[in-house]
């Protein structure tokens, strides 16, 4: 049921007379990818749950005007990335915390094992990722965990492939340094 192509899903949404059903299929197709993308950025399940619902509600509101030039997958990832980054900014503003402190609160979450199932090495990797600037973190996650092509990341983040490669390499080196230090 979730194996429909994006084109087919959009066609169903616009022309089947039952856009709600078509939208449900879109949610089912992309929910896990979007969830993990968000979760890796905000770490907490409850926050991720709020964000993913917000992402799909925004998608539903915008789908009527959506033109498939960029692809459904790219578009959803872009909404999700923006939502996650805005969420982290809001969090920082709400608590009047410097950015570093928000990162530290995320590291504490990893340390406290709330929903964390990995081993010590994976924990170290997560902590290393949290030391990266937000954009580098997004790029690293997309490439390392989601195994995306630079071309796809470029479309989502609207950044040149060259800049993304540089960003990813820089991030990977920093993580390597962090791991070797700890």
């Amino acid at each position, binding site marked *: 049921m979730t194996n429909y192509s994006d084109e087919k899903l959009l066609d169903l949404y616009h022309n089947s007379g039952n856009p709600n059903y078509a939208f449900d299929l879109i949610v089912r197709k992309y929910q896990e990818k979007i969830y993990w993308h968000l*979760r890796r950025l905000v770490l907490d399940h409850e926050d991720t749950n709020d964000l993913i619902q917000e992402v799909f509600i925004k998608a539903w509101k915008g789908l009527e005007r959506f033109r498939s030039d960029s692809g459904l997958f790219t578009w959803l990832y872009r909404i999700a990335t923006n939502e996650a980054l805005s969420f982290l900014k809001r969090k920082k503003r709400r608590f009047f915390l410097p950015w570093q402190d928000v990162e530290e609160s995320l590291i504490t979450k990893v340390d406290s094992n709330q929903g964390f199932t990995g081993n010590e090495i994976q924990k170290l990797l997560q902590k290393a990722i949290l030391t990266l600037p937000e954009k580098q973190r997004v790029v690293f996650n997309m490439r390392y965990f989601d*195994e995306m092509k630079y071309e796809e990341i470029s479309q989502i983040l609207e950044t040149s492939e060259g800049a993304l490669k540089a960003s990813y390499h820089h991030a990977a080196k920093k993580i*390597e340094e962090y791991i070797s230090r700890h």
Partner: protein
Amino acid sequence: MEDKDKIKKELKQVAPSLEKHSGETPFSVPGNYFETLPQDIRKRREQLQKKQHTVFSRLGIPQFAYALTVAVFLIFAGYFIWQKETPQAMNGYTDDALFDEYFAYYADYQSAAYYDMVLGETLEEAEDEEFFATFDNEDEFIDYIATYGDYYMQSPIDVENSW
């Protein structure tokens, strides 16, 4: 998605220790979460649709559009009529306010001049003693200026200079 080998090769060059990691996300999700998530999203969507439906069904979209057009027209018409009828403001004052201000100032000044004339020093200091000598008392003088004087038509400065 990119070929895994390509990504590993790339990592080997940049960060060899990362290549050994699995690349799995080490977080757990509550049981059946992905089964219930679509339903939760559907519920939120339906609530939103209901809300929108309630607002529009009360007004009705065509009626709402007409009402909006009429309201905009009335606002513009009202604004232009108000602009025409309201006296033009000048330095923050309307014509009426300027007139009131000047009238109050002028009347005050006039009263003060008369007060001086009738009761006080001005009368004593006046040069034309012969003229004032024709009046037996202050009341006669007041009657005189009330009858012949045209001070009301003069500016406060003229009244002041006339003394």
